[in-house]
């Protein structure tokens, strides 16, 4: 009997320690997206986007006390730290802020310029946050992106998430922390903006507008998507559609199927040299010229033009890299893998000074594998 009591007491230890973190879903404010901004005076502004679940179409009857037809709302507060801002928001929110489902972190322009790594510390430190959330930046205030109401999705956070996967180069919290901590690669973030749809309606749509590049955690340059199209070759994103112009008015539209970049570094006479090989396959989506693409020579012509274009794109990225000394491709990592000793001894600590001195050679090969259902523009006669 005594032993039974003892066993019972021991077993009850398993049970009586429970319940402390019990939280019903209707006592939670599920944060879908959050934005971080820098305010004057070194303060941080945290904005959270929280769905109003009672407006999401639960069962009829009963119901919460929220009004209006908006399915979410955005609250924001300032503080010396992000957590302080969070506490301020929480102090006027009847439900517990729950960050485990946030999928988007938006960095405001000012925060990006002044360095965002301090603000991100909480995201990687606090276990509720997920490292797989995407991180983007915006021009202007991060909060504006959360307030935008896109037409298709219920929350702008959801829209940003879908867009960053489809239209930009996705960067997760995990990626950005690796980019910030690894010597030999610098960070970049996709830029999103809220824009009016055309014709102008009630909604504000979210648009992927470009890429911002960083040195350390500070923003140094922003580019439009086309200015930095070459970057996509190195980050497993399908390259953007291209226009190939033949002469003045004749244009072909090309889309890429596969793209692969291969970087081979070499150290020649104290200078780092990169051989960059690009392989891609593409298909023709539109043909405004009178070319008959069923002919090998015409196809070849398009391929040559395209190859030239791709080379130019990548060259532009490399020139920007040299100019801004922000290694967004990760050339340093490639060098480190191939020449670990030299990297450790020589380049590791001075890589950003070394970048402007690098040389490179680009070889590209793009194949047109699919010319579409028709061979030439059926509206036109061939003149070439």
């Amino acid at each position, binding site marked *: 009997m005594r032993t039974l009591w003892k066993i019972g007491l021991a077993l009850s230890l*398993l*049970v009586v*320690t*429970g*319940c402390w*973190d*019990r*939280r*019903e*879903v*209707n006592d*939670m404010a*599920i944060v*879908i997206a959050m934005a971080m901004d820098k305010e004057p005076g070194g303060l941080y502004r945290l904005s959270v986007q929280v*769905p109003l*679940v*009672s407006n*999401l*179409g*639960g*069962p*009829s*009857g*009963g*119901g*919460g006390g929220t009004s209006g037809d908006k399915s979410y709302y955005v609250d924001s507060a300032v503080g010396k730290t992000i957590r302080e801002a969070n506490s301020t928001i929480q102090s006027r929110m009847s439900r517990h802020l*729950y960050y*485990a*489902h946030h*999928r988007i972190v938006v960095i405001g322009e000012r925060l990006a310029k002044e360095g965002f790594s301090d603000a991100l510390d909480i995201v990687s430190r606090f276990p*509720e946050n*997920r490292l797989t959330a995407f991180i983007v930046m915006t021009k202007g205030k991060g909060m504006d992106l959360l307030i935008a109401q896109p037409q298709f999705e219920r929350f702008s956070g959801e829209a940003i998430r879908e867009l960053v996967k489809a239209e930009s180069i996705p960067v997760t919290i995990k990626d950005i922390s690796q980019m910030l901590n690894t010597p030999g690669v610098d960070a970049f973030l996709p830029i999103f903006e809220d824009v009016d749809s055309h014709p102008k309606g009630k909604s504000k749509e979210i648009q992927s507008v470009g890429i911002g590049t960083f040195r350390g955690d500070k923003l140094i340059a922003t580019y439009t998507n086309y200015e930095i199209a070459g970057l996509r070759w190195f980050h497993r994103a399908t390259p953007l559609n291209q226009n190939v112009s033949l002469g003045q008015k004749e244009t072909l539209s090309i889309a890429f199927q596969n793209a692969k970049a291969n970087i081979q570094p070499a150290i020649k006479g104290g200078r780092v040299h990169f051989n960059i090989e690009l392989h891609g396959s593409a298909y023709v989506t539109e043909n405004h010229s009178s070319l008959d693409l069923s002919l090998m020579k015409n196809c070849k012509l398009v391929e040559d033009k395209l190859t030239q274009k791709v080379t130019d794109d990548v060259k532009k990225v490399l020139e920007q890299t040299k100019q801004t000394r922000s290694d967004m491709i990760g050339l340093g990592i490639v060098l480190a893998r191939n020449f670990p000793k030299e990297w450790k001894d020589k380049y590791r600590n001075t890589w950003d000074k070394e970048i402007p001195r690098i040389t490179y050679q680009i070889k590209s090969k793009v194949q047109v594998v699919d010319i579409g259902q028709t061979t030439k523009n059926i509206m036109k006669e061939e003149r070439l």
Partner: protein
Amino acid sequence: MDFKRKDKTKELIESINACSLMDLEGIPVFSKLADNIALLKKLFADCSDFVIREFKQKNSVIAIAVFVDGLIDTHEVNQALKTLMVLEDGDENVRVIEEVLLPVSQITRVNDYKQLLQAVLSGDTAIIVEGNQEALTLGIRGAEKRSVNEPEGEAVVRGPREGFIENIRTNTSMLRRKLKTPRLKMKSAVVGRETNTNLVIAYLDGIADPQVVEEVSRRIDRIDIDAVLESGYIEELIQDSTYSPFPQVMYSERPDTVAGALLEGRVAIFVDGTPMVLIVPTTFWMLMQANEDYFERFQMATLVRWLRYLFLIISLVTPAIYVAITTYHQQMLPTTLLLSIAAAREAIPFPAIVEALIMEVAFEALREAGIRLPKTVGQAVSILGALVVGQAAVQAGIVSAPMVIVVSITGIASFTIPHFNAAIALRMLRFPLMIIASILGIYGILVMALIILGHMANLRSFGVPYLSPLAPMSVGDLKDTLIRAPWSNNEKRPSFLGVQNARRMDSGFGDQIQSKGGGKGGSGRSSTNEEGKT
């Protein structure tokens, strides 16, 4: 001397008062018929169905026939008793009557009142003749019994449609029809002080483990209870662990299931008065199998078995996991699913665990009501349950729709388990799992699952580990547990049962057909050539 003995008999008869058959052991059939009549009349005073038919010769009673009205086949007994009407002098010896006069196939000599009355109360007719210390019992029984029907508890699509009935002789005959072999042994026993229920322990000699057979007999012999009204009594009295929720004895009302179990080396226990035949030793996986698995194509049977294993887990843990995830581990759900659940739960006044308990208890009540009520009313209950409890509770915002889905899935899942008693065990364990999930989340579910698993691994049924052949692992037997191997591959009986004569068939039987290349006739290809010629 003679006078004294008589006095003794009188004393003996007077000393017997309101006793059960057990107490009559050792009381002999008296040579004087009057004593016998006196004893019987005393024992069966106020028994209107008990008949003592007297046969007289020269004004003195020389023989009596004793039977219970309604238990005998009146017509046949009449035929047999005709011979007693013409009993001649010198024929008053029961041996002569048995061997020369009575045209009855089943006839037994008894000399003890226990045996005599046991036979009579089971439906035999006893004949006691003046001057004999032995009596005859004629096995001409004819009590009313149900006809053989399709068993309602174990329906099949493909397979025999006969089920056991309440009469033990009919049941054993149905088994004997399946197993026409002298190996099929049927040891009988009687249990129950007042019911004197007949039991038959059936097994295949040379296949079943003799130790198991012996253990079964020993445990049954040890039973001392006043009544056995169903095989469940026996099950509870012979099982290894009384307080386990898991059944350690399987029952079936299908002759083919019982025959299959015997062929695997198990032992069956028939109990008179119930169609449910017990099968031991029982393992857990056996309860997950239906007899139809062996009649259908093996691929289908394998898939169905895995479906059952899946739904076994679902029926056990789904409500617990739902409660755990929605109260502790919200990060485990996809965001959109969490939002849907949050929207559905928005207006619900109860915490998830209370909601789950309400719904599960309501479901169990509905199920129970559906079983007990007459069929016509049962339908009304299901309509009430589905419409009122299901739809209205959701619309009124008392129970959330996801919870209704969880409970329905759990209910359906528990019905996929072919043996009802195994399903009951899982249904019971669901509740502690739910409660611990509400306290400790998934950690609690894991702890509880480990406790359950440990308990199951600890269980034994007649010396056989409950989880065998998985734990302890015997790889060869997994052929009939994880999958249902085709018969041509399933050459051996389960080894964990300690069977003798393990081979079911010669090896390579399936290959013989395959090697013929599908040809007709004796030697495959050559025969097709001959066909071509003609």
